[in-house]
């Protein structure tokens, strides 16, 4: 089971914090800080596995992390997960982010934190691996985004159009519009009111 997924940058600023086990808020922040310190100490050419810190679980838990440019992606898992499998999972997640954001960078994660959560929800659910097929994940995320957009924009338009027509006071419209030489005869539209 995956206990937590943390993404922070090289200075320890959290970019994504998701716990699959309930911890009080202060403990959550402490865990992020402690994990950052543990991971920072690691060189680049040693293995990606760390025994877990003291706060999150006990000796049964490991931290599996990957370092991409300015970001650390850390998954805290227990012994029932395959370590190499989780490494692949992190890769899948990052590649999915890449597809969704088009050459993802740290700024994308900063400004679209909620979107990142939604994408993560399609990969890992309840601490278990849900889907690893990138195309499926991306398709689902895009469908949901479309759904969101359609609600906010177009869904409002028809309502406005109807109310606009209701407000037309057709009998009050002038019968003759005289603009200089032109003489437009306006038909009788009263039956449409």
């Amino acid at each position, binding site marked *: 089971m995956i206990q937590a997924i943390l993404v922070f940058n090289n200075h320890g600023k959290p970019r994504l914090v998701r716990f699959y086990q309930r911890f009080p808020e202060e403990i959550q922040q402490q865990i992020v800080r402690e994990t950052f310190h543990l991971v920072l100490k690691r060189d680049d050419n040693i293995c990606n596995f760390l025994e877990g810190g003291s706060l999150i679980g006990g000796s049964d838990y490991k931290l599996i992390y990957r370092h991409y440019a300015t970001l650390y992606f850390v998954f805290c898992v227990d012994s029932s997960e395959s370590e190499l499998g989780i490494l692949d999972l992190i890769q899948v997640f990052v590649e999915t982010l890449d597809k969704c954001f088009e050459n993802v960078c740290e700024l994308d994660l900063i400004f679209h934190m909620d979107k990142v959560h939604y994408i993560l929800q399609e990969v890992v659910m309840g601490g278990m*691996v*849900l889907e690893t097929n990138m195309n*499926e994940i991306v398709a*689902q995320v895009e469908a949901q985004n479309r759904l969101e957009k359609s609600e906010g924009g177009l869904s409002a338009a028809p309502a406005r159009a109807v109310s606009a027509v209701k407000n037309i006071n057709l009998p009050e419209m002038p019968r003759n519009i005289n603009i200089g030489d032109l003489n437009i005869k306006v038909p009788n539209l009263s039956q449409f009111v």
Partner: protein
Amino acid sequence: MVVPSLKLQDLIEEIRGAKTQAQEREVIQRECAHIRASFRDGDPLQRHRQLAKLLYVHMLGYPAHFGQMECLKLIASPRFIDKRVGYLGAMLLLDERQDAHLLITNSIKNDLSQGIQAVQGLALCTLSAMGSAEMCRDLATEVERLLLGPSPYVRKKAVLTAVHMIRKVPELSDIFLPVCAKLLHERHHGVLLGTITLITELCERSPAALEHFRKVVPQLVRIFRTLVTTGHTTEHSISGVSDPFLQVQILRLLRILGRNHEESSESMNDLLAQVATNTDTSRNSGSAVLFETVLTIMDIRSAAGLRVLAVNILGRFLLNSDKNIRYVALTSLLRLVQSDHSAVQRHRPTVVECLREPDASLSRRALELSLALVNNSNVRAMIQELQGFLEFCPLDLRADCASGILLAAERFAPTKRWHIDTILRVLTMAGAYVRDDAVANLTQLIGGAQELHAYSVRRLYSALAQDISQQPLVQVAAWCIGEYGDLLLEGSCEETEPLQVEEEEVLALLERVLQSHMSLPATRGYALTALMKLSTRLRGDNNRIRQVVSIYGSCLDVELQQRAVEYNTLFQKYDHMRAAILEKMPLVERGGPQVDEEAKESKEAAPASTDPQASKLLDLLDLLDGTSGDAQQPPPLDPSPEGTLIHLLDLPCAPPALAPIPNLKVFEREGLQLNLSFVRPPGTPALLLITVTATNASEGDVTHFVCQAAVPKSFQLQLQAPSGDTVPAQGGLPMTQLLRILNPNKAPLRLKLRLTYNHFGQSVQEIFEVNNLPVETWQ
């Protein structure tokens, strides 16, 4: 006029713009106030935006609990955009410890039954993240219905939600078990993955379920084969391996089903062999599958050949250049070392190589595995390697390494000398990290190895002379020097280099230890007692020792002060007892209460020969119908040193008891005279102390003098070691020996003595009973 609130991006911009923590706090507090106001009476259409901002500041660590009710409102809204943020907020902010969480149960129920696919997905996701036991019970039937619904997307989410529900409420397994068989026929990988997870969870929780699912093993094997052989769906493949996650999950389930079950193990044998030999491990995903296969092979009842293959695969991985692979290989070998010890032994050299890794995770694993691989035949080489590791390993591993080495040495030490050497080396290198009982163990070990006393004390002396900062080492060395100081000064020991040590040097070293600020109070205690013991072992006068002891009589440390005062008294008023009290310690019972330094000696302490005399002593005692003196145990003493001395100190100042008992001359021959003096301490009415004094007025020395005694059965006799075995001629220093006799029944005392010695070139033996014993000695 409502102040337009910031969009999420703008808020983030502002926060990033803040130069200091205080500024950031200010910005956030201001915005939170807006958010709170907006929650109260703001535009419902904008609510989702406010909550999104709140979740952002929550991630940064600021309080966000006031948003909890808003989550509920948003979830209840018909708009997808509201629900999305609302459910996310519920997952991040709500938890089952608050009663508010139950309020979303209804919304979830509605969304599960009527919502569109995406909304159902959201509801299931939230349920699996923070669903409490009550919620799970309420919604179980809904979830079960969705398991068989039309949409694979919803099905896969429902399956994982079911896993969560079973974890929270194990009784729900009954609901979800029947549907698993159907789900196994899924084509959709996501659903299949979830199903395998569900079945695994069910089997782990209930042996009945385990039995039930054994029959799907053939089906699982089929699914696996399809995955591997037909290159099924390339879109699930990762680096050329088709859906490694699903493969790993199936292998794990097979492991659980095949464990301890011949038939199931049989049916998966072929598949495992195939996977083990054919999987391409050039990329990480292939390795992941292969590892899982190896673990499964080792855990089920597989054929012997297959097991060997599996361990060899692990051995090959140990040599891989990828550090991650090496790490996982070490972890797997550690799991196997108990069950397949000899197979893992074959890879010992590679494991030892891994100790030298700079990577802390790898070297930690290598250390654990190395310690598990130590056995009788490789102990010398392994301990050598481990000691090399101890010198340079990272600090957090030192304690584990040191105690691991000590434990292994204890179990497999080929010789006592090697054992002592090993412990010595560990103490020198990592003294600060060893456990507290290492000191006790080492003193016990040295005490028991009589032939190594000289060797030990020399080595410890050299080590101490070099470095007095490692406390356990200092304590052991001080104790040893105190006990065997005479051997240190004596001359050469053939096992170490010749070491010429002067008495003054030894005393100076111990004084240095006493005065050093690095020494712990316990260490000082050891040093002080050692100095005291040396007062009887060394031949010089004891002025220096007396000085030190009297200085410490006013030491601030209470323990030290007490000891010093007692030792002082020992020098002054009870000097005649000093030799007896400070004799060599008997071997301490392992794990028993620590016997104090003042415990009385057993009869064997006399370095002169005692064994051949045992039989003759029996003859002696037969006459008296007494038990063999050798076999008697010393009466149990008050264990604390303070206690014994307090008894002594309770005595009145004049050493003899209330009425002095007259001395008795018991033997006289050719100038050699034997006198007995008696003491009855008033505190212990049953106790009689006899001091045998041998004086020599003749021209020739008396050498090899041995005095033995026997008493009737109801008495308990204890002989102290004599002060020497030579009585010099012409009134030289008399030899004394202390006898302790316990007479609880107040029976009449009878005493028989046996003397053997050389005088004037002749060996003499005398046996006689002591007559005219004063009545006061036993009444």
